[in-house]
């Protein structure tokens, strides 16, 4: 015989042990989803149970009788009281310590009744279970464990949070945002609104990157900016951009994509109107390439090539009229002629009126086959033509 009985026995033992081990390693759906990081290597036992002294808690030595007193007083005989702060978790307040902790023994650390914190929490907070399983972006501390932010017993802040959940808690991790928002020159008023960070973000997560509470940044911004707001710093009015976009359906690209944040930094910035990159603060400014956020998308040749037949259609022959207007010591900024949000009257995002000083002057643009003309505040009607350059006398 080729195989000895001992060898066959060895195979049987291995197979048995494998099947036993495999049986022990079968995970529930919740364990698969939330993990088993609390699982202890061997059973965790409550010391009185380990000693076999049931009378510590029970009225009889077998541990079959009633408790000598009700939790939480019973637990508090040995453990610190867990209901001492302003806000108390429901089960703690109700004395239901055993809702989460097994008083005898458990496979998990802290005698918990589940093998992960989140699994334990969602056993009551079922809506959050649903949320965590079905939401595209979950805030990473939430995914890790709820107690990163919430104290499971008692805390001085609402929802047993470890600090005020509207901002203070957030900046415990996002300290860079704390520094940024408090030091930038052009601040966002939303940060001082009652719900602070939560005005825009969902602390648990959302379907949208950055855990925004609306589907696009535009939708989010317009939830406030559909009325004329007042700037905190100087009391000046901010355009009702919702109404502006409604009345001016020819939208600038980023607005078509719903992305206000393509240009604006909602946490504030050191640029005009919280822009992500600089833009001249004044109507006139010395032209510098680095002073225009516009070049993030638009080709700089449009402004910087004095002569071109390709970079822009705003040219008189090959004389680049963008260059003439913008690229100089007292250059005009784009706002002189363009509206960056939406327009209606004219093509090319040309604004109907230019505000200069306190007056709104019409630009009176007329487009022709090969060019056009305008009669704004700045000069009498002047013409440009790509095919046959015009001479303007006034």
């Amino acid at each position, binding site marked *: 015989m080729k195989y000895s009985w001992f060898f066959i026995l060895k195979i049987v033992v291995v197979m048995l042990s494998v099947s036993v081990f495999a049986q022990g390693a079968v995970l529930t759906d919740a364990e698969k989803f939330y993990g088993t990081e609390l699982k202890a290597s061997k059973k965790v036992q409550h010391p009185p149970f380990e000693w076999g002294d049931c009378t510590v808690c029970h009225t009889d030595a077998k541990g079959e009788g009633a408790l000598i007193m009700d939790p939480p007083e019973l637990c508090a005989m040995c453990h610190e009281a867990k209901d001492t702060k302003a806000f108390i978790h429901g089960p703690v307040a109700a004395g239901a310590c055993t809702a989460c902790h097994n008083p005898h023994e458990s496979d998990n650390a802290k005698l918990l009744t589940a093998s992960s914190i989140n699994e334990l929490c969602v056993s009551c907070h079922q809506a959050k279970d649903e949320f965590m399983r079905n939401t595209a972006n979950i805030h990473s501390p939430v995914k890790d464990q709820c107690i990163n932010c919430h104290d499971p017993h008692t805390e001085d802040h609402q929802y047993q949070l470890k600090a005020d959940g509207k901002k203070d808690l957030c900046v415990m991790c996002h300290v860079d945002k704390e520094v940024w928002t408090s030091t930038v020159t052009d601040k966002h008023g939303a940060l001082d609104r009652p719900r602070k960070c939560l005005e825009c973000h969902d602390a648990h997560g959302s379907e949208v990157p950055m855990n925004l509470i609306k589907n696009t940044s535009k939708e989010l911004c317009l939830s406030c900016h559909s009325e004329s707001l007042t700037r905190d710093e100087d009391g000046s009015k901010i355009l009702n951009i919702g109404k502006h976009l409604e009345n001016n359906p020819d939208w600038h690209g980023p607005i078509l994509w719903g992305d206000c944040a393509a240009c604006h930094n909602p946490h504030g910035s050191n640029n005009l109107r919280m822009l992500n990159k600089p833009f001249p603060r004044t109507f006139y400014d010395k032209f510098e390439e680095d002073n225009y956020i516009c070049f993030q998308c638009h080709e700089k040749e449009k402004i910087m090539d004095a002569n071109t037949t390709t970079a822009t259609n705003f040219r008189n022959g090959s004389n680049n009229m963008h260059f003439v207007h913008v690229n100089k010591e007292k250059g005009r900024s784009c706002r002189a002629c363009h509206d960056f949000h939406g327009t209606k009257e004219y093509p090319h995002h040309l604004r109907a*009126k230019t505000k200069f*000083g*306190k*007056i*709104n*002057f*019409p630009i009176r643009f007329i487009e022709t086959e090969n060019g056009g003309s305008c009669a704004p*505040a700045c000069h009498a009607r002047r013409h440009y033509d790509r095919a046959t350059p015009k001479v303007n*006398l*006034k």
Partner: protein
Amino acid sequence: MTEQRQKLTLNKMSFKFIYLFLLLFTTISGNAQEISSLILQPQDKTRYIGESSTFVINATLKEADYIVIEQSDITTTLEIKPQKDTYCKTINLNPGENTVFVTLYKDAKPIGKSSRVLYFLSELFEGVDEYELDEYKIRFFHQDAKEKKCASCHNMTSNIPTNNEALEDVTKTTCYECHNSMISTKNTHAPAANWLCINCHNGKFGEYNMQDKGASKYLVADPVAKTCAECHEDVKEWEESKFGHGPVNDGRCERCHNPHGSDNEFFLRKSIWELCTTCHAEKSNGQHVTSAIGFGAPNKSGGHPTRDREDPARPGRELTCSGCHNPHGSGGISLLRMKGTMPYGVCQRCHKK
């Protein structure tokens, strides 16, 4: 409506006709009656601070064919139409005293005449003597009684926007109808070109024209700087500069700038060099700065150039007074455009090491 200046040309008439005409003219002209009610506007001995004067002529008295307005060498002819009694014509006055004759003609014969002596006060032209002015009065036109006379033809109620929203089509404004020649210049000031007249002609008065309080609903405050500063934020800065320029200190921007527009840059009333040397005449003698300092000084020649060449410090612009001086004010002496406190720093704008 552009200014129509037609010189009477006789070259198309036959020689015979010229002879007859001259004969008639010399014999009959003496018979043209003085008609006191011929010129409804302006009043005699009116003083102007702007160059234009609008004549309103009543042609009902005689059955005339045409009206001739003569003003030194400029003659304007207005055809008389049967259904129209009153004729308006805006003329441009010369600096100083102007005598303007209005004559009615019928069949080439003068049948009625009247005249006005007017005074255009502009400090920027020689021969204008303020001492002559006592007998000339500034007379405001837009007063209820006078407006009533115009109301049969003209809408005398202003439709100028008061909300800072300029109209798309400015020709629809009531002011445009009579005052449109105002913006025929090469460069026009935006509020004027956009007919936001009331932004400046707001009826307010200032320290220097308190006596005119209430005289016209379109009065402009004198000094005007406060009005200018409503748009031009720099004005405040200029007024606060350590060394100031007289007209700026006085708040009288309009001394150098024409607030409606001009053929010169920055709506200046003359080109920069001509404008500066109007008051600072001694600076035009070719001995500017360098003939007083350096080797061989003082001498009568070799002054620093002040014009007729390119300004090295401002590429593309011609050298002129404002290349070195800031007419609005400066932190240093002589209104020099200097950085810091060293007057000779201004030289380094062009004379780099």
